[in-house]
């Protein structure tokens, strides 16, 4: 399955290099490609992050010290922020799991027409621009939001859903649960039906069947998704910032850097701690997944049998899905209402509606839309080029230490956007573009590169999955007929990988389009601003809420259309090529 969401999902499935490709030494072209890739990764990920680490560990004059770390741990506020971040990330993962697991199970187990609904659920939350989504949630679930106003009126109670850290947990769970949903669904689908039948044959059924056999077999998918949710919530800046919860690590880092300037060491200390923890979480999950490669669909086997739902069961299932869908779509609904609202204050619904905000946006924001399209396409393009190159280097060459390319590229998942931005600003401070005296850090190239670096893991996973579906014998056949390596790649490999490449491109694109953490720090001028930054700007003023929401709706629409189209193209290219790929694999 090479759809963009599955690509986003299949992030931690770690394939082994597979059958060793016989080669007499390593060709010069391979070295060149590896050098270019490594150069990119070094310049735009390793070194900036390294700079951050460096600054955290030195005095103003350059002597090494752990003083800053001591200062960090001796500050009650910092300790509190750290614990809060851990707490929020863990609880969000749990809630996300609670939402995702039943949904995944429904899709795979039962025969019902809600499947398309669930697929939508898998994508929609991910394409919500962070800032405006949280604002909308406030309007609906906040202390004077629609829900509480109605509850207060009817029942005299209010639910503090958005109070304090609860608000952050709520918004983050809803935003990120698709990672678990997609990963778990794929893992469940890969379970050989015989596993389940064997258990049933021995007397096992219902909940026990799920708990003893099915879930353990799908555990790798679950862990992959859950660890991803954990890391992303741990590192998230936008949502806590909007909800005013600053007692968390990412907001604290942001506040320190923007308040005191790039020289404040505390911001770097926080950054280092964030990275270390993210990597630890990912390493832990990799260790849990090790040796548990349960992809077991065997020749002649199908996946878990589908069942019909009893009418009562169907009702319950639809009700649950409906409820989840409603909650998950509430930010989108909220944003839509806000974009059309004239005045929405202390009432369940806006007072009056208007299209004026859209007019404002279309007037003002064609530049921003253009910017988003430009930066995100370039970044995504760069990502798939790098992704294909790295995948090829790993699986088709005998380059020494080539796994490092994969690890370094994937490590950028653990680098919070804000840390990367800080790293860029610090490392490239004062460097000008050759020939002009424009600062590199004040150009949009930095923004685009930050996107490319942070989105690379998604594209890479897609390209790796796509490459693995093309049996090496297909390339060998081409070479035996006289095609050089490069021509083989161009004429055989890339067309067969097209589906996966496109999936990677789209995933990179849509996640870059709603990125805010790095954007906020790297965008200096309004004319450079992409849509996500534009929304942030709009949200800074009274008259800007409507247009900000309108821009948010535009962003969602653009991204949704992109995803939908790509799904279609991916399906079509896969069905065109899949039979040959599958046969080659049999």
């Amino acid at each position, binding site marked *: 399955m090479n759809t963009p969401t599955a690509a986003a999902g299949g992030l931690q499935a770690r394939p082994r290099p597979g059958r060793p490709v016989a080669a007499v030494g390593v060709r010069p072209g391979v070295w060149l490609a590896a050098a270019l890739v490594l150069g990119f990764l070094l310049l735009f990920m390793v070194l900036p992050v390294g700079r951050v680490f460096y600054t955290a560990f030195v005095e103003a004059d350059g002597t090494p010290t752990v003083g800053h770390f001591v200062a960090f741990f001796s500050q009650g506020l910092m300790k509190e922020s750290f614990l809060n971040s851990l707490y929020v990330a863990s609880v969000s993962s749990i809630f996300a799991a609670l939402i995702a697991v039943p949904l995944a199970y429904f899709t795979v187990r039962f025969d019902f027409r809600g499947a398309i609904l669930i697929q939508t659920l898998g994508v929609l939350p991910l394409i919500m621009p962070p800032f405006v989504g949280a604002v909308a949630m406030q309007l609906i679930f906040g202390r004077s939001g629609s829900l509480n106003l109605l509850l207060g009126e009817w029942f005299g109670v209010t639910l503090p859903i958005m109070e304090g850290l609860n608000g952050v947990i709520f918004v983050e769970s809803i935003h990120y649960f698709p990672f678990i949903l997609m990963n778990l669904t794929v893992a469940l689908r890969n379970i050989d039906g*015989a596993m389940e039948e*064997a258990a*049933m044959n*021995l007397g096992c059924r219902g909940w026990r069947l799920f708990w003893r056999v099915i879930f353990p077999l799908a555990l790798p998918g679950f862990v992959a998704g859950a660890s991803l949710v954990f890391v992303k919530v741990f590192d998230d800046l936008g949502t806590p910032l909007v909800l005013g919860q600053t007692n968390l690590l990412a907001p604290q880092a942001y506040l320190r850097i923007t308040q005191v300037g790039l020289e404040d060491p505390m911001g770097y200390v926080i950054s280092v701690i964030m990275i270390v923890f993210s990597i630890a979480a990912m390493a832990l999950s990799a260790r849990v997944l090790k040796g548990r490669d349960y992809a077991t669909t065997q020749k002649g*086997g199908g996946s878990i049998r589908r069942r019909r739902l009893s009418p009562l069961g169907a009702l319950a299932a639809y009700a649950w899905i409906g409820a989840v869908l409603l909650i998950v779509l509430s930010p989108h609904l909220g944003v839509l209402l806000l974009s059309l609202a004239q005045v929405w204050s202390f009432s369940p619904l806006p007072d009056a509606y208007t299209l004026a905000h859209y007019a404002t946006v279309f007037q003002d924001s064609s530049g921003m839309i253009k910017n988003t399209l430009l930066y995100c396409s370039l970044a995504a393009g760069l990502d798939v080029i790098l992704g294909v190159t790295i995948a090829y280097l790993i699986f088709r060459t005998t380059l020494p230490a080539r796994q490092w390319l994969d690890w370094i590229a994937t490590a950028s998942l653990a680098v919070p956007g804000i840390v990367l931005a800080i790293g860029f600003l610090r490392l490239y401070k004062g460097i000008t573009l050759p020939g002009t005296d424009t600062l590199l850090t004040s150009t949009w190239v930095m923004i685009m590169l930050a996107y490319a670096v942070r989105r690379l893991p998604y594209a890479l996973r897609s390209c790796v999955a796509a490459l693995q579906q093309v049996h090496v014998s297909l390339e060998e056949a081409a070479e035996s007929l006289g095609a050089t390596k490069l021509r083989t790649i161009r004429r055989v490999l890339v067309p067969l990988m097209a589906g996966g490449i496109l999936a990677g491109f789209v995933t990179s694109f849509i996640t870059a389009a709603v990125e805010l953490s790095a954007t906020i720090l790297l965008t200096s001028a309004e004319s450079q601003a992409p849509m996500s930054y534009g929304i942030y700007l709009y949200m800074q003023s009274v008259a800007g809420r409507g247009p900000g929401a309108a821009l948010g709706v535009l962003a969602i629409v653009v991204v949704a259309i992109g995803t939908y189209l790509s799904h279609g193209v991916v399906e079509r290219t896969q069905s065109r090529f899949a039979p040959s790929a599958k046969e080659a694999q049999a």
Partner: protein
Amino acid sequence: MKKVSVQCRHVRLSYGSTEVLKDVDLDIEPGEFFALLGPSGSGKSTLLRLIAGFSRQQSGEVLIDGVDISAQPPWSRNIGMVFQSYALWPHLSVWDNVAFGLVERRVDRATVRHKVGAALELVGLSAFGDRRPNQLSGGQQQRVALARTIVIEPQVLLLDEPLSNLDKTLRVQMRQELLSMQRRLGLTTIFVTHDQEEAMTTADRMAVLDQGVVQQVGAPATLYDDPVNTFVANFVGTMNLLPGRVHAAGTPAATLQVDGVGDLPLPAQMSAPADERQMLGFRPQSLQMTDAGAARDPQWLWMSGRVEASEFLGEFTRYRVRVGPHSVAVDQTHHAGQHKFAVDGDVSLGLAPSQLRWLSD
């Protein structure tokens, strides 16, 4: 363990508009090792899964020990099934795999330990309790799968192509082990395979299925020697088939008019249905091949032909002899130094009356 019988009465199963099992009737004796043999798509696996409870027939009954179990879900039928892929759970150790069914039945720890130990010993894997399935070879995995089902003491054992994933030598060894274990336990066993050699060497009786219909049921030798139709004849062993018509049956002038060959005089002892189109069937090894000019036994049916090809198979040599428009397979047991018939040589093929079969299409 008590030996129980398994019966299917007028079982019909359709998926949508496709009929997969058509009026299946089977009677399996208690303690029997019964094979379901057929090509893919014949419905044999479907029938097995039906008995296991993974699908439900539209009409008909399935009886175990005289009781109709059609309405019972798979988990309450107490039938053990070994899957083609073995379906060992990779996240559980061998021990836990085998203990699974007992745990499900809430058996106490001590009993579990005892029974699992015994089952593992029975299949010769006592030392492997701690291993994971992916650390075992194919043969070992199969034994674990067996142990897993045996340990719950099922009434019936179902085996779905259990040997197809093994290589040849292992297969031969395993089928013997399966058989001896079954004899020891006395379990009624139903065994699905597409390999007639497997079925013939192990089954007490077998049923041949084609497209959802039971073609013939009987002991292997019966099916081999007396197939009821050309399908069974071709499926169980190799059968030469010549279409023809008998004229003047029972008289000294009886002839078999074989299409494209001409009239072959029928020896008097050969009984034959009169005046109907028939397929003359005979096994390759039942033909006597001589050089063209050699003497012909008048008790036998003789044909003339020309050797087209010969394949040396070690135990025997198979010749392809062209008789008219037909290609006839002739097997000759091989021993060192034996006379070989040359390709393009003319030969006579002789058939003893007792080896002849008349088959309808």
